């Protein structure tokens, strides 16, 4: 499995555990859009530390850095950085 696909698969599993099986695009905002919460962001951080050896203590951390598949892939150096498209909680 290539790395962006691995990231996508990890995020899909996170969403599935929350009962969210709706599709998502690589540019979709997942945290700021409300589909993932801060505790899910923690799981992504741990995944990135373990799988890609990222050290957030050295590079700094903000939720916006891991808000979409594109942004996560950019962090791991596999894609150019792109902005996410934030959605809204219903109503």
């Amino acid at each position, binding site marked *: 499995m290539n790395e962006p696909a691995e990231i996508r698969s990890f995020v899909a599993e996170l969403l599935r*555990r929350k009962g969210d099986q709706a599709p998502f695009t690589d540019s979709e905002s997942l945290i700021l859009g409300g589909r993932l919460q801060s505790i899910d962001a923690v799981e992504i951080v741990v995944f990135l530390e373990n799988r890609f050896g990222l050290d957030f203590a050295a590079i700094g951390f903000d939720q916006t850095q891991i808000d979409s598949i594109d942004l996560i892939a950019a962090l791991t150096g596999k894609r150019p950085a792109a902005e996410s498209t934030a959605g809204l909680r219903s109503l």
Partner: protein
Amino acid sequence: MLPAVSSWPKNFRLIPRLENDPRVIAFVQTVPGKLALLAVFGLALSILGSAWQLKLALITCITFVPQARRLLVTIGTLLLTDFFWFNRGALALAAGRSPAGFSRASEFFWIILPFVFLCAGLMWLSATYKNSLVGRRPLLVLMGIGSALLLVACYAPLFGFARFAVWAFLDTFCLYVWYLAYSMSDCATPQGDRLLSQAGTFHPFWGSTSVPIPKGARHWRTIEARSPEDLAVTMVKGVKLIAWCLLLSRVQGYYVLLVHQKLAIPAPSQCIQAFQAGQPLGWARNWLSWPDDLLQQLMEISIWGHTFIATCRMAGFRALRNTYAPLSSRTIAEYWNRYYFYFKELLVDMFFYPTFIRCFKRYPKLRIAFATFVAASLGNTLFHLTRTLHTAISFSLLTTILSFRNYFFYSVLLALGIALSQVRPRKPLGSRGWFRERVVAPACVLGFYCFLHVFEITSPGPGLRYLLFLLKGK
């Protein structure tokens, strides 16, 4: 958010999903459509909000000149906060302690202007020296400045206007400290906003508390509407939210009438007082008082939070709601996330993540638990302490700090609850059956917060005795 978790029945909507109708979105992009939307919103805001005329005028300008949005937000914010917000009550207190003749002009030159320079200076330092302590750990720097100010205010031999000015400066600093932390953090990024735009995020015109809603400039850039269609969807959601808010405020009115006037359910503080006086109220009234208070708090926070967010959305920012279906929470951590979202986000951004990425990296559960403790307990107490530091002018600094020991105990219990709910293995939604997930789990979560609330309003000893009385019934 969480489409599959939406409340039962799944497809029923009290307010329809108008934003998904292309005809509505197309109409809202026309001038009559925009005016209709603004009229409906203005009507609702006039019932719910203060200074609605100015807010409506600002939103109207932003709607028709979206390219000047950030400038208009800054202007509106400065107008509505009277060129930086003062806690007049604290100032009066300071003035009462050391009577001094001071005018608005002297306030401006000795308090507001130095504060503006301090903010601008710190943001400039963050932007210029991104890898310095100011750029990387803004909150640490701000806490250092706040502590120094506090020591000067409490112990320096100051009298008359000087004493008043130092306390007023400290009070202003405390009112803006979390905003400044977000701004300094944003300035340290390559895309950081300019100083004038940052000023618009300081108690923005749609309303806020000591908690920046919705967060700082970096977040604003991510959620700002980028196209006419995007703006139309955001505004429709703003109108829907204020309509829901209006409905909720009516429900709250009837609820209070029913619970307090018809059923005469007492407030929790009355229950505690009666218990401590040795004449406890009836067992059922005691039990009903806590969930009633929780429900009232939920309605109250939802109403003001929705009003802020609806106005923010009308200004073109796709902000998430501050309170989102907390009664459906299946875990303590989920409720904490849904109850006061932007306060939780503040604690997460300022305390949780900085701790999490640095401490106990080899021990996953301890890592989460410790970061949760730092955020939900230490950060939470510190936040509330900064809000009330001005009371140290009347009491000593030590007395003010010690008065927070009960709150600290409450926050430790809260952190414990959140940490446990976070480190427990999470089961996929739908794996435990509808009744357990939709009824039992939310009821347990609400029960936890009801019991916890006892320690929010009374000290640990009497709180524990009162809980025993509740559980034993005598």
